[in-house]
């Protein structure tokens, strides 16, 4: 959180400002009308397109914008800081043409076939977590439920031992908390993570099996196995991209249902609505914004952009743009036409979107099956994660039945 509060988001935006963190939607609405591309000198300079059209244009323009780094910080890694052409976490930090190669490698593992096969495992996991909450009047749906689901699923997919789950959660914490630390500091923080992953990689080399780690180790580029730094980078990506994102989406959805008993009652009584409801949860509470860097000085969308300026791609803001969505500021649980961009647009579409949807659907299905009526226990104590992934962290829910 910044100690220098923003006075005007049009000329000085900051996505870690407490007002933005608490409730960004009125800010974005104002920016859409006034700018529609907001500017800041913070973080060394950056731009925030607030409309669907602006977000879409930049997300698809890999000629003028690089994904070398996608998380805003005060520093910027240069091309020389990163293993070329792989980048830190391929393919999210890769640009064309290497991007397509790195992405093609991982997409089959996240395609609907293998992902849908995980449904029984995810359901069992949710039921087990809910068993642990049984009998409590107030449960923390953030820290005791949503937070555990994605890491447990990903631990299972990577084929890391179940008894390592606490250690694994600690690594997730290191990776997510340090996400905007300078590169050198980050490498240092990563040491225990790297040691553990290296051990797992070695163990999988000796005993290959049917999991994501063995899949990456067997993958080939030009007839050669992947460089180990590529395997490691992709594992880190899977952790960074697959955990607080989905955990935030699950938490926001439960928060919504706690605040909107009519929507909760409809979902309980009409479970067939779940697929469209999931898309509306994703539109209305899209958790993820991603960054780009401007490649060269240029005039773009009427803005004098400079090389290495940040672009914050507000997919959640695009999802509230009234030019694209009727009643954009209303949550409509059975919204039939919903072209939301919660998973991004263009070549960097979230590779884990099928998994995220599945986890979100099952997590909500099982939660409302166990607790068909509930409300917020203490609205004031709900905290929202700052930064580029938005979702409730502390989420006390009073169980009514």
């Amino acid at each position, binding site marked *: 959180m910044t100690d220098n509060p923003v006075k005007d988001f049009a000329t000085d935006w900051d996505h870690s400002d407490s007002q933005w963190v608490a409730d960004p939607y009125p800010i974005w609405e104002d920016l859409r009308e006034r700018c529609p591309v907001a500017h800041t000198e913070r973080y060394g300079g950056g731009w925030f397109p607030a409309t669907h059209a602006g977000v879409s244009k930049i997300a698809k323009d890999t000629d003028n914008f690089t994904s070398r780094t996608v998380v805003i910080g005060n520093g910027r890694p240069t091309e020389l800081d990163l293993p070329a052409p792989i980048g830190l976490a391929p393919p999210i930090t890769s640009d064309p043409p290497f991007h397509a190669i790195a992405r093609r490698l991982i*997409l089959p593992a996240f395609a609907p076939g293998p992902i849908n096969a995980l449904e029984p495992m995810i359901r069992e996991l949710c039921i087990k977590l809910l068993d642990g909450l049984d009998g409590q009047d107030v449960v923390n749906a953030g820290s005791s439920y949503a937070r555990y689901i994605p890491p447990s699923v990903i631990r299972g997919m990577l084929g890391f031992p179940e008894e390592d789950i606490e250690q694994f959660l600690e690594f997730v914490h290191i990776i997510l908390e340090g996400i905007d630390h300078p590169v050198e500091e980050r490498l240092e923080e990563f040491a225990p993570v790297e040691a553990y992953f290296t051990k797992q990689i070695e163990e999988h080399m000796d005993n290959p099996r049917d999991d994501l780690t063995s899949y990456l180790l067997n993958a080939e580029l030009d007839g050669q196995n992947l460089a180990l730094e590529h395997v490691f980078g992709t594992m880190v990506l899977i952790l960074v991209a697959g955990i607080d994102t989905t955990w935030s989406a699950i938490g926001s959805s439960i928060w919504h249902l706690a605040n909107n008993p009519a929507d909760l009652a409809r979902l309980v009584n009409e479970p067939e609505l779940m697929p469209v409801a999931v898309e509306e949860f994703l539109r209305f509470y899209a958790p993820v914004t991603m960054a780009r860097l401007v490649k060269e000085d240029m005039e773009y969308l009427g803005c004098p952009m400079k090389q290495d300026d940040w672009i914050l791609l507000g997919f959640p803001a695009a999802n509230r743009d009234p030019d694209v969505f009727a009643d954009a500021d209303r949550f409509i649980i059975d919204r039939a036409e919903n072209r939301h961009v919660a998973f991004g647009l263009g070549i960097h579409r979230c590779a884990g979107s099928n998994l995220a949807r599945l986890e979100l659907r099952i997590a909500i299905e099982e939660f409302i099956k166990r607790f068909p009526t509930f409300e917020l226990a203490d609205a004031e104590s709900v905290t929202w994660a700052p930064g580029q992934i938005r979702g409730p962290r502390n989420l006390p829910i009073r169980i009514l039945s």
Partner: protein
Amino acid sequence: MKVRIDPDICQGQGRCFSIAPGLFGFDELGNGVVIGDGTLQADTLALAQLAQANCPEHAIFIEE
């Protein structure tokens, strides 16, 4: 009427085959593909249009 997916535009958002699994499937990368030759009947046209209206990438085309 026929429906087609432009493979150069499709990014595997996955909406079409969830909404209309009889009309659309997916390839090994998870990108959408039309099942059969894409010919639409009166009852499947509306479903194809719904899938089209939900594709974030605007990759679905319905043509004479």
